[in-house]
């Protein structure tokens, strides 16, 4: 078996297609394609775009044979494998809407995963669900009692008879896919992205962000159900006709060095990851790296998907400098599923660009005043942020105050964006859509940011989203797990996270508990912690507090920010002992 080549003769077209199927029609005229590597780094499957197109058309004919309404949702358990691509593009050719579903399961998480699949299948009202053999038993349980036209493996799907009528691919105004934000597992939100929307973002990413070259080669271990994994590393390589090498996320998690080996071996030029991916490499590589890799081909090491801290990336660059890693390859970017993917890209070939500001003005006045050490003698260090670049062409950005006023440069506020790749809305959720998307097309990103010289700097999140190891965790998911216990009443739990001194986020769940028995309290904490690990794969600190401790708003709603402030006060006063937070307390600087 031989991987698809990097070099090819097909003239580069930078995503300037009306639809994804048109883009694949063009890519299929070349020799490039997708390559899949196993957990040992061996090539397991090769899928040139030409073959992908043939096989997608065949699957499309079978999809059409099911007699579904146009635009029906086809749920795909998005394991990193060739079948995902076949079915994703089959939907494009058949006028159906693919819905990538998570393929991530945690130790002891059987029930939680099945429940999650079921919630998503119900939310998108799927007519078809396809899962690889490994996931079939979970899918079977998840569809129990639901009336789907088909639920099974790609092999089983081959028994569906083909339609005889010609295929009518999705047009520019039709949906290209539905993307569940890597957000809440309990309260899913399916982002609706049309062909026109995604193609606009792909063209921008390829032309203005990545500045694609005909001899580029991509490499990715990002999940296919993640916006950066799907749009950035599945659709974007295809729409720019370059070859791409895939490693399963799980195999990367197990052996992070495979990311670097495959880049070395295939001379990849473009690869993205969340900061935590780079950090994991640093943690697991240990010791000498010289001679192990050759990363000199890696011209664009994209960083995004969570707030970017510079230190781990600098350590990564130092550790891999002997292997030819160029620190100027680091390119920070900003985006979200609601914008298809990208909103801004830092300028290429400059490496991480940092902005250091005066911490007090930031904390007290929400102003990002450039830090000058001489002006602040003895006032400690400045606070450093990574610059995420200027917005892509066609994008407008506004930083607004809590009252909605547009703020000048270097004032921190909520970031609103408007542009050609903003979603149509959340599927079947008009109220939720109205909350974030104005009739004029302004999207509330929920992120806090400021502008400096027209460049975007993200300082944190306004929404209560918790990000741990690159995964988004929604506080309501943690709260619902607590409330599902018989001892905890609805509205008696509040979840949030805070950033520790080392820059890592820590999830906290404060629960009002009526029971005074220490043994039963201990048992309850342990049980909830275990359930959270099984469902979400993260550690969470549980604090049980007396009744009426959690602060509420006038309308009786819990205030997560209030609960967080009270918690931090208890930690600082030593009234709550939380392992791992003690150093933070002693340092006397619990960051918000």
């Amino acid at each position, binding site marked *: 078996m031989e991987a698809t080549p990097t070099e090819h003769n097909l003239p580069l077209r930078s995503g300037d297609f009306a639809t994804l199927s048109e883009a694949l029609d063009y890519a299929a005229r070349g020799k490039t394609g997708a390559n899949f590597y196993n957990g040992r780094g061996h090539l397991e499957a090769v899928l040139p775009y030409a073959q992908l197109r043939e096989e997608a058309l065949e699957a499309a004919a079978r999809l059409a044979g099911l007699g579904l309404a146009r635009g029906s949702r086809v749920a795909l358990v998005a394991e990193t494998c060739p079948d995902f691509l076949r079915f994703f593009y089959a939907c494009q050719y058949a006028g159906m809407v693919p819905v990538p579903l998570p393929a991530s399961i945690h130790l002891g998480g059987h029930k939680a995963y099945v429940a999650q699949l079921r919630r998503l299948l119900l939310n998108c009202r799927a007519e078809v669900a396809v899962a690889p053999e490994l996931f079939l038993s979970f899918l079977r349980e998840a569809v129990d009692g639901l009336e789907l036209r088909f639920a099974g493996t790609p092999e089983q799907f081959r028994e569906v008879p083909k339609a005889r009528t010609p295929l009518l691919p999705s047009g520019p105004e039709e949906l290209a896919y539905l993307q569940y934000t890597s957000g809440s597992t309990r309260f899913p939100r399916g982002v609706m992205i049309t062909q026109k929307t995604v193609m606009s973002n792909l063209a921008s990413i390829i032309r203005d962000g990545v500045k694609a070259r005909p001899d580029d080669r991509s490499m990715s271990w990002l999940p296919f159900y993640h916006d950066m994994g799907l749009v950035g590393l599945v659709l974007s390589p295809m729409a720019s006709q370059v070859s791409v090498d895939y490693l399963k996320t799980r195999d990367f998690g197990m*052996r992070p060095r495979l990311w670097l080996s495959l880049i070395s071996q295939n001379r990849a030029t473009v690869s993205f990851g969340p900061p935590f991916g780079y950090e994991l490499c640093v943690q697991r590589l240990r010791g000498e790296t010289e001679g192990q890799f050759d990363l000199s081909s890696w011209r664009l090491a994209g960083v995004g998907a969570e707030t970017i801290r510079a230190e781990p990336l600098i350590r990564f660059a130092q550790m891999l400098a002997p292997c030819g890693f160029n620190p100027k390859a680091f390119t920070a970017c900003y985006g979200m599923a609601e914008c298809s993917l990208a909103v801004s890209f830092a300028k290429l070939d400059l490496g991480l660009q940092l902005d250091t500001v005066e911490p007090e003005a930031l904390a007290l006045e929400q102003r990002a005043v450039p830090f000058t050490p001489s002006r602040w003698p003895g006032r400690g260090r400045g606070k450093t942020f990574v610059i995420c670049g200027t917005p892509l062409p066609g994008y407008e950005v506004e930083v607004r105050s809590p009252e909605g006023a547009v703020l000048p440069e270097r004032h921190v506020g909520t970031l609103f964006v408007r542009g050609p790749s903003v979603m149509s809305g959340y599927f079947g959720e008009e109220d939720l859509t109205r909350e974030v998307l104005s009739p004029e097309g302004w999207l509330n990103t929920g992120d806090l940011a400021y502008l400096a010289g027209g460049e975007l700097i993200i300082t944190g999140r306004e929404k209560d989203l918790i990000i741990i190891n690159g995964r988004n965790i929604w506080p309501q998911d943690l709260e619902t797990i607590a409330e599902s216990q018989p001892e905890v009443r609805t509205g008696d739990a509040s979840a949030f996270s805070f950033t520790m001194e080392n820059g890592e986020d820590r999830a906290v769940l404060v629960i009002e508990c009526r029971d005074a028995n220490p043994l039963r309290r201990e048992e309850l904490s342990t049980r909830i912690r275990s359930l959270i690990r099984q469902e979400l794969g993260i550690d969470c600190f549980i604090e049980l507090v007396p009744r009426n401790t959690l602060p509420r708003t006038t309308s009786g709603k819990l205030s997560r920010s209030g609960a967080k402030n009270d918690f931090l006060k208890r930690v600082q006063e030593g009234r709550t002992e939380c392992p791992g937070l003690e150093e933070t307390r002693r340092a006397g600087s619990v960051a918000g």
Partner: protein
Amino acid sequence: MNTYEDILQEVIALLAPLAPPGRRVAEETDFVADLEFDSLKVMGFVEKVEDRFDISVPLNLLPDIRTVRDFAVQLQRLLGER
């Protein structure tokens, strides 16, 4: 040569350095409740197992594993299938 007891002892030996300080690992130890494993620690552990036994541990086994015993039983089955 791979009896259940051998495999169990190997698994316990691989787990011991990953356990929270002072925590003993035994057959009944629960990965999540006792060892406080999150998804990254699980991956680190599975890597060690794969390297030690030269096998591939299928992802779909994990959701039904809670204790060290569950893991050792599955591992013995995987080794038997080789």
